């Protein structure tokens, strides 16, 4: 019998330990499928962040390294410079990438480092128990914005894809979501383009993935998908923000 569906080779057999309804599992799988499709698993090193996805090293069946909080793009820079033939990706959350690691992501993008960044934007800190992230929406209630995010004292949610796409060193940037199958298919295409961009040596690529955190949002998985579509997508529009001509 012909096998039509299976687990990607680039994932281990360890079951995901993420919360029910969390999108990390889908994002992991899409990356793994793309690594399989390009046949680059054996020359890939993934850089995992600090946060829930610090455990990504358990789930990806390729070489993995854990960076200090926010420093994944700098670690990836060191790896890629030392071994330019490797495929290097970072997997970072919004606290990691858009708060403590803002300097690293901006300058890695600006240098046009030939790496791929998978940026999980779920508008909250997951692992530490639901504090405000730089991407938390206006009015959103978190542990550290208990009366809702007030832009007067807490600033506005950062649009990472738009911000980084102004930099000349960037080859590919898009924003996708995972809340329904049609979005997941588009997300896969974006991740493919990002890795393709790296494989072809085009420079820095990033996919911002709007994701749910049902546990810290205090919603059921289905409600969380709905909340994402009703609240996050209007503020964080989906689409490609930068594409190199050869990749698009």
């Amino acid at each position, binding site marked *: 019998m012909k096998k039509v569906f299976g687990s990607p080779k680039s994932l281990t057999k360890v079951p995901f330990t993420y919360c029910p309804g969390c999108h990390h599992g889908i994002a992991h799988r899409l990356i793994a499928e793309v690594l399989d499709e390009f046949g680059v698993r054996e020359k890939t*090193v993934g850089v995992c962040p600090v946060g829930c996805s610090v455990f990504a090293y358990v789930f990806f069946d390729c070489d*993995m390294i854990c960076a*200090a909080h926010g420093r994944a793009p700098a*670690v990836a820079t*060191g790896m890629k*410079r*030392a*071994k330019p033939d*490797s495929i290097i990706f970072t997997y970072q959350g919004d606290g990691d990438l858009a708060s403590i690691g803002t300097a690293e992501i901006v*300058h890695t993008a600006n240098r046009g480092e030939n790496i791929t960044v998978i940026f999980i934007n779920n508008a909250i800190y997951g692992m530490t128990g639901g504090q405000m992230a730089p991407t938390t929406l206006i009015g959103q209630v978190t542990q550290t914005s208990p009366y809702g995010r007030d832009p007067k004292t807490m600033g506005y949610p950062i649009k990472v894809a738009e911000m980084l796409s102004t930099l000349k060193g960037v080859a590919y940037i898009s924003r996708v979501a995972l809340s329904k199958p049609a979005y997941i298919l588009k997300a896969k295409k974006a991740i493919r383009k990002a890795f393709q961009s790296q494989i072809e040596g085009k420079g820095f690529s990033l996919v911002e993935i709007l994701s749910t955190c049902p546990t810290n949002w205090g919603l059921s998985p289905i409600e969380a998908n709905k909340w994402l579509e009703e609240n996050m997508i209007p503020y964080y529009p989906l689409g490609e923000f930068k594409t190199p001509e050869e990749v698009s």
Partner: protein
Amino acid sequence: MGEKMLMKGNEAIGEAAIRAGCRFYFGYPITPQSELTAYMAKKLLKMKDAAFVQAESEIAAISMVYGAAATGARAMTSSSGPGISLKQEGISYLACAELPCVIVNIQRGGPGLGSIQPGQADYFQATKGGGHGDYHLIVLAPSSVQELVDLTMDAFDLADKYTNPAMILGDGLIGQMMEAVEFKERKKIDLPDKEGWILTGCKGREKKYIVPFNLDPYEMEKINLKIQEKYKKIIEKEIRYEAINLDNADLIVVAYGTVARIVKTVIDNAKKEGINIGLIRPITLFPFPEKIIAETSEKINKVLVVEMSYGQMLEDVKLAANGKAEINFYGRAGGVVPTQFEILTEIKKYLT
């Protein structure tokens, strides 16, 4: 015979690193070490299979070192006090992940932004860990430009031998000074194979990972015990010091780096006045040469520790002497270098 040339300390470190096989340098400008960063840019940007990156910050620079080291490459970063403070996060990660690299600290006066003149007040930070958690760097303290060269090359070997970050703890005086240096032919030494832990893709093998954490405290304790075991070996095998005139000395000075160099002149001058001074100059600050200090303290009961700080190495000397000798201290800091006259005057105070 190797090649002899006149070089500035900071540039000599760069040349030594390149000759030791370092092809990856990540740094950020700071006085008084910027010549080293510039030297690495000049050389590495023209070399094949090499990289120089002027990082956006010291934090990023040390993280780039972490990434490059994880691929098995010899990598280096350098800075001075305020920048070294920023690097502590990455240094703690490197120590926990057991990744070899070389970090250069050309010390200046502190604390805070301090001054840009020489200092030795980063001793605690260098030898006791510096960042969070229980760890040690291998710390080498050169006292001449020639020693900067030799110890820089040794630092890469020691880092690889123990898969541990090594630090060159110099100061602004040695970094800025020009001296004749010789790049000697070095004996080939056997170093452990890196294949077992480097991350270059899992072709033909199981995947590997480098994760400097474990949420299970008993597993995290095992990681700690493993590196502690390594430090014991380092203490057992790698202690280096220079001892001058220890027999029949009226007083022993303990000093390292630039200060030890000044003390050598003091010894000569004191001799003319009939005063017999000995010197113990630690070359490795971690591991610290405790035994020689302990043994000497039993024989000569007057010791003077001189530092460009307010008494940091002093604590290690006191621990080593363990009450056997009278330990005195003289220090200038903030960028002030003690003079020969001041040191001799201080010595005389304890000999009357």
